């Protein structure tokens, strides 16, 4: 059901002519279709006569990829979405019987419009949102909201949708993991997730990244990243003499 809904939303926006071709693939439908106000009062951004973004939603700045990028024809993009929707509906079967095909399709690129994860814990996000949160973290999070991807259409406006959603998921994480709280390095990760999916899914994705894939990277003591850093510095680099004197390990 969820995928069908998304698909309808995508095609509706496309038919109504609201979306240029590139943006069909960018996963920023909502901000373009029904949130004109999110551009807010930002002078530099308003100064741009046309709100022309690259396919990732950037209006400018160092991340802007320009118009040189190759784009896939719409009918190819649509074919891929349909194939992926079909795969999602029989996911287990596809993984067990036609894994090579799944791999091939992954390598061709997962359509951005489908890059959401299924909800992992229904109702939990809302519960976290209702909790008040520790002012110590909220204060720091608020200071960072306008400092993530300022040239991205979602995050350009102070208090716009992007910044609001960013606040919601970063705050929810501090309640979900009060022992870890908020680390500044989480904000850009969360912002990128929001470029691809709604806040609730982005939150659960962030949880996966912070707890499963990079445990300890964002913790209060930053233990895991320090450990990885030392391993990196001690690893023998081909062509270089032993790097011990330059390693941070020597400083401890």
């Amino acid at each position, binding site marked *: 059901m969820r995928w069908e809904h998304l698909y309808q939303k995508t095609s509706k926006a496309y038919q109504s002519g609201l979306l240029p071709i590139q943006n069909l693939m960018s996963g920023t439908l909502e901000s373009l279709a029904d949130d004109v106000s999110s551009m807010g009062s930002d002078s530099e951004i308003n100064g741009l006569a046309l709100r022309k973004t690259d396919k990732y939603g950037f209006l400018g700045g160092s991340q802007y990829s320009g118009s040189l990028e190759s784009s896939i024809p719409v009918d190819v993009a649509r074919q891929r979405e349909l194939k992926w929707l079909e795969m999602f509906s029989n996911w287990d079967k596809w993984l067990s019987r036609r894994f090579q095909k799944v791999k091939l399709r992954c390598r061709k690129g997962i359509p951005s419009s489908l890059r959401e994860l299924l909800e992992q814990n229904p109702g939990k996000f809302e519960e976290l949102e209702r909790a008040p949160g520790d002012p110590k973290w909220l204060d*720091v999070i608020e*200071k960072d909201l306008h400092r993530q991807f*300022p*040239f991205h259409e979602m995050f350009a406006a102070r208090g716009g949708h992007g910044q609001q959603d960013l606040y919601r998921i970063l705050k929810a994480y501090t309640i979900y993991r009060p022992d870890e709280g908020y680390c*500044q390095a989480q904000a850009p990760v969360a912002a990128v997730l929001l470029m691809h999916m709604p806040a609730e899914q982005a939150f659960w994705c962030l949880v996966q990244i912070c707890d499963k894939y990079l445990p300890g990277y964002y913790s209060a003591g*930053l233990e895991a990243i320090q450990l990885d850093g030392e391993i990196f510095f001690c690893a023998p680099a081909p062509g270089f003499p032993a790097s011990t004197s330059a390693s941070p390990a020597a*400083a401890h």
Partner: protein
Amino acid sequence: MQAPHKEHLYKLLVIGDLGVGKTSIIKRYVHQNFSSHYRATIGVDFALKVLHWDPETVVRLQLWDIAGQERFGNMTRVYYREAMGAFIVFDVTRPATFEAVAKWKNDLDSKLTLPNGKPVSVVLLANKCDQGKDVLVNNGLKMDQFCKEHGFVGWFETSAKENINIDEASRCLVKHILANECDLIETIEPDIVKPHLTSPKVVSCSGCAKS
């Protein structure tokens, strides 16, 4: 134009609480611009500034822009290594960031000293002075006293936005570092064999000596 005789490369740290304007100060100093669109610093960032100190001296400043969030304090020992000086920045509109200044100074002094065991030169920057809320630093005498007590070589009211006092603050820090370096050389001197002090003997090459 004659090539400069002396080149110095100094690593300078820019530290202070989150959002006080460390990155903006560096951007202003190195790239001569200011933007309200900037990104929170994660971990550490770098910039290089070249100063033509005098006709014979070029000073290269490697500026380390260090993330202000408290938990990155776990990494500062690594970031501080071999620095020759530092700016500690606070935001005049947020008194809490001034209260953190002593904490940053202690962190620095506990983790970093010059080869002769002395603390590195540190300049205190009272940033965002363009915002007109600088009740904190209205009392210059008090600030002088604070700097003396906490071992700062000087302090400046700065604004990255309006480009106020940033070059001056940097010149002050570099001046102290250069002076420190002279001291350093003098301290180490007894152990150094100075080639120019030994009388230059005119020795013919070994091959000639044999003949």
